[in-house]
């Protein structure tokens, strides 16, 4: 225990180190309440803060206009789908005027775009003006097999009989986020978003190779460019997947913030679908036991967060 550590700005509350501190956010996921906005106006907030998770931002003590820099945020989900946090951070950083490199290996661009529009952000517009660099894994994986060998492809490892390393993918990220001379310095800070890292293991890479790639990305994005990284890893606690455990635990040791999404231990419920535990893990000024725990819920049925705030009283916030 560090005696009287200064509370980092990125942690939510003054009594962050209290073990007993916990709050509950509950999301009620009625599909009828999804706000379907198809405004092409880009990151311009039609209804500011109502299109993201304002309660999550409050608890993390962050907002698009005061986003922290140099942080690795690990998203982890167990027995549920934590992709709603990926959508949250994607819209969050686009609103924050950050240059975002999104390595999307799970879904198509149109899928992320539809969800982002419901959050009030247009990925198409962001991509057109150069704010978003989108690597669509589903499409790129096919392109790998039809390109000429001279061209380095970010997913080059798919062509290799024995999957080696992710150096081409690192070069892609570095090129995408390093500011050029064409006035790109207007963006606030670079952000790397990965959905998700576990699929790289399924594609034949080892956990150490993925950890190496993340280390290079941290060195470049977080340390050199003073940006942020957000990455999702599944917790396959029931399957005894050793490689995934090494990846998850290795990244947990390096992360500044861990958001762990879990399904309810008591089973399924109509209104509350899970909880998010938020813990800080920083090596510079304080340590892991200074953790904050937050409970929330999300929508397991689809990617659309439902965000109309009904009651923000006390420690439980109900959504529907």
């Amino acid at each position, binding site marked *: 225990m560090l005696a009287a550590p200064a509370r980092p700005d990125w942690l939510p509350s*003054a009594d962050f180190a209290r073990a007993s501190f916990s709050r509950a956010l509950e999301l009620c996921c009625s599909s009828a309440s999804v706000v379907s906005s198809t405004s092409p106006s880009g990151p311009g907030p039609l209804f500011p803060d109502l299109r993201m998770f304002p309660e999550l931002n409050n608890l993390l003590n962050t907002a698009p206009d005061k986003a922290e820099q140099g942080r690795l945020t690990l998203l982890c989900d167990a027995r549920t789908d934590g992709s709603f946090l990926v959508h949250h951070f994607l819209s969050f950083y686009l609103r924050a005027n950050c240059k975002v490199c999104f390595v999307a290996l799970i879904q198509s661009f149109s899928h992320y775009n539809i969800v982002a529009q419901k959050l009030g952000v247009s990925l198409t517009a962001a991509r057109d003006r150069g704010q978003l660099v989108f690597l669509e894994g589903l499409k790129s994986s096919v392109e790998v097999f039809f390109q000429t060998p001279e061209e380095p492809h970010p997913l080059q490892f798919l062509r290799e009989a024995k999957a080696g390393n992710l150096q081409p993918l690192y070069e892609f990220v570095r090129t995408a986020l390093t500011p050029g001379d064409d006035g790109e310095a207007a963006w606030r800070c670079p952000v790397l978003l990965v959905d998700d890292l576990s699929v790289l293991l399924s594609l034949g890479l080892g956990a150490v190779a993925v950890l190496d790639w993340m280390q290079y990305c941290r060195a470049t994005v977080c340390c050199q460019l003073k940006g942020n990284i957000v990455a999702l890893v599944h917790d396959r606690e029931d399957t005894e997947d050793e490689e995934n455990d090494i990846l998850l635990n290795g990244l947990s*040791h390096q992360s500044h913030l861990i958001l762990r999404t879990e399904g309810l231990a008591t089973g399924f419920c109509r209104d509350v679908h899970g909880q998010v535990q938020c813990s800080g893990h920083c090596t510079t000024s304080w340590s892991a036991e200074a953790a904050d725990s937050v409970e929330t819920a999300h929508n397991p049925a689809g990617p659309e967060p439902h965000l109309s705030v009904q009651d923000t009283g006390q420690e439980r916030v109900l959504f529907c």
Partner: protein
Amino acid sequence: MKMLESLSAFGGLVLLRDSVEWEGRSLLKALIKKSALRGDQVHILGCEVSEEEFRGGLDVNINSRLVYHDFFKDPLNWSKTGEDLPGGPLDVLRAICKRTDPGPVTVALDSLSWLQLHVPCTTLCQTLQALSYQYSSPGDNSSEEKVCVLGLLHEELHGPAPTGALSSLAHTEVTVSGTVGQAWVAHILYRRPGQLPACQTQWFSILPDFGLDFQKGPPLEPQTHLGPRKPEVDPTAHLTFNLHLSKNEKEAKDSLTLPFQFSSEKQQALLHNGPGQATSQIFYEPDAYDDLDQEDPDDDLDV
């Protein structure tokens, strides 16, 4: 003597075993600070966090005494900047082995887990063995120089076999644990040559400048360092019922005969029909639309 405080003075390999919940890098930095203040040469093999992040929180005076070998930026030579260190991290360790300048040396491996994942276990163990038990240069009266190797090991990342191999090499193992909101607990296992291993448990906290603050036992008031204490809530306040009885209420309660208590009065009342029983009657008037079947009274039940 605080065993934790003098770990690096013993020499040999010291394993600092931590977990995600209880990270041991702060303790590693606290021990590095002790060594630097004692006058040791301190080499840091940084593989997991940036140099800036590792040096954060340490005094300028301490930082100036640290020799940092950076394997975080480009450990696999992907960048090809030419700035990478010659050879790998093990070559740096071997170079420390061949040093010629006298004096005690402390080598901090941040982390041993990173090395374990990237280097074959046997090669790593041989290098650590050579480093931990090195002697000074041959012409120097063969006096043994103390080299202390502090290795940070993330327990979850390794199976029992590599962990066991490293444990067998270590003179001392420190397992960091604790409970949230309380002081850290260090379980120390110290192996002396020719003696039984000694175990010790120490409670401590790490100050913001990475000094160690030892405590005699588990703290009774764990949150004194963590801000203003929460106001104690009286659980008996605002109850909707009465917790305590007055004397009269207690007498009334004691004199009450509960329905299940059998007494001679109740026995008499049951044996002799009282006036109340004589007047009690049950009237039953069947519903006009009831379909009563005398032969099958349960006809209306779906059985």
